[in-house]
């Protein structure tokens, strides 16, 4: 924006601003309004070219740049040739035109963004944004960054339950339940809950956080996912980028990035409040992963597989962030 003082037309620009006619001594940094970029770039010779004839035709000397300047000057006028009122009008008009154009562009962009084709439930550009967030914040994930744990006495005895996807009681027999693991050699593992109970046990109370916004201190026990990997020699599988989990009826499914799965507080959980995990909380086996929102803490794990591609994820398909990292 140009910031030009009122200059009497008889004066020539550089002189009048350097030698004020006022009797007030100039301050170290005189409060003279700024000189426009356009004006500042005009060499004195050019400014002198039209000293006393406001609407003078273009000077004869031809320089490629001065042609552009002449065009610009003709289009927008020159401040020092205008009255103060004209200057105010001109600058107001230019500024508000730019303001209106940019405002309209922002308004238009907003609707372009909102009405973009969707990628898994959200406009494509926002999906890209969420994936970019993951690229930034996966660097903050560290096995040393542990969720604060609490004494068990602080854990709520009425552990909140939310979400019934994949939890249909019909057709599910807890006694016949097995954890099916797809392995790299295709032989697979089929493990009962007693076999998992023989592995080293880890238990803690932490503040469970739901993507809806509520949180609750709850107490869980089970085998660390990383201990499970070690005990069953699944290092080769764990070298892949993701682990996928789903329920027996395949109605609920999540994908977890491997660094989060291997975080030292990620549990294959079979106990809640020191008791066997109730069926409605995902018994016999569920995932407890404090570095993720509750949506990733899949209940009633039936199948586990490993992949370098993102495994299907129920809430991801419904517009949520894939990573959901806390």
């Amino acid at each position, binding site marked *: 924006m140009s910031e030009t003082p009122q200059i009497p037309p008889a004066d020539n620009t550089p002189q009048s601003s350097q030698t004020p006619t006022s009797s007030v001594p100039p301050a170290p940094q005189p409060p003279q309004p700024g000189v426009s970029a356009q004006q500042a770039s005009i060499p004195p010779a050019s400014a002198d070219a039209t000293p006393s004839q406001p609407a003078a035709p273009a000077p004869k000397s031809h320089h490629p740049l001065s042609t552009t300047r002449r065009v610009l000057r003709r289009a927008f006028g020159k401040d020092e040739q205008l009255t103060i009122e004209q200057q105010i009008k001109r600058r107001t008009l230019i500024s508000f035109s730019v303001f209106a154009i940019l405002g309209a562009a922002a308004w238009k962009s907003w609707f372009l963004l909102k009405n973009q084709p969707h990628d898994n439930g959200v406009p494509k550009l*926002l999906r890209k944004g969420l994936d970019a967030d993951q690229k930034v914040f996966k660097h903050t994930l560290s096995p040393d960054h542990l969720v604060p744990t609490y004494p068990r006495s602080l854990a709520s005895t009425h552990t909140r339950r939310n979400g019934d996807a994949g939890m249909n009681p019909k057709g599910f027999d807890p006694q016949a339940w097995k954890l099916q693991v797809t392995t790299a050699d295709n032989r697979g593992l089929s493990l009962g809950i007693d076999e998992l109970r023989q592995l080293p046990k880890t238990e803690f109370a932490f503040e469970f956080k739901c993507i809806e916004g509520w949180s609750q201190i709850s107490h869980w026990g089970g085998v660390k996912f990383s201990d499970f990997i070690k005990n069953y020699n699944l290092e080769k599988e764990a070298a892949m980028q993701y682990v996928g989990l789903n329920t027996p009826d395949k109605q609920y499914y999540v994908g977890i990035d491997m660094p989060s799965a291997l975080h030292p507080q990620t549990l294959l959980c079979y106990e809640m409040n020191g008791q066997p995990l109730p069926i409605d909380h995902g018994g016999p086996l569920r995932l407890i992963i404090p570095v993720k929102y509750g949506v990733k803490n899949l209940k009633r794990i039936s199948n586990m597989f490993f992949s370098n591609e993102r495994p299907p994820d129920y809430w991801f398909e419904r517009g949520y962030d894939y990573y959901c990292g806390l």
Partner: protein
Amino acid sequence: MKVSKKIVAKHPLAIRWMHWINFPVLAVMIWSGMLIYWANDVFSIHAGNKTYFHFFPDSFYKALNISYRLAEGMAFHFVFMWIFFVNGLIYVLYTIFSGEWRYLFPDRHSFKEAWLTVLHDLHIRKTAPPQVKYNGAQKIAYSAIIVMGLGSVLTGLAIYKPVQIHWMTSLFGGYGNARVIHFILTIGYCLFFLIHVFQVILAGWNNFRAMVAGFDIVYDKQDPPAAGDNPSPDNNPVPVTGGSQQSPVNAPLIHQIPSHE
């Protein structure tokens, strides 16, 4: 009495850009924040068993079509947060390095001035205290809003990454508290917005134009105007033409504003 009108620089271009970028971006942040908050709308103003106001009534959700849009809210919130943050950061850095902070940052007189300004605004006192660019009340309000912005970014981070950055979450008194602070700050923006718009309307066209076009118009009189007389084209119809008189460029002004290039 000889009066001459003149144009002086008020708001640098950078500040105007950042102000007007912030306005829609903050609006998107507040809107998407409401979509998120709806999913667990537990906050209310209450004392004992009595609830005075629940955030928010069903009619509010209905009117703004807030319900069942959590995923959409999170997507917008976690993308636009970057624009909000970067714009705010550049604003703070610009304000520091350009020296603009001198007009913004309250000094020891600001609080008294703010009080006098409030009295003036309430028509209890006839004159407002003299000001350079911003009065005391503005300085306090505009500085506070920057601190609030920082608070929103930090409490937001505390809620967004409560495990990886849990020291930040602890700093705000835990996850639940960080959410409360984040929410209160948002209510604060809404109140600020209402007062701000009201004041801008009261201050008039000249003041508003300065936030778009950057310049202000001041009146030089041979008899200096009374302190606090904030002239506007409407109440001072003396026509002045640029070509008819010499302009004392360095004459004392009400607004002593250095040039911004």
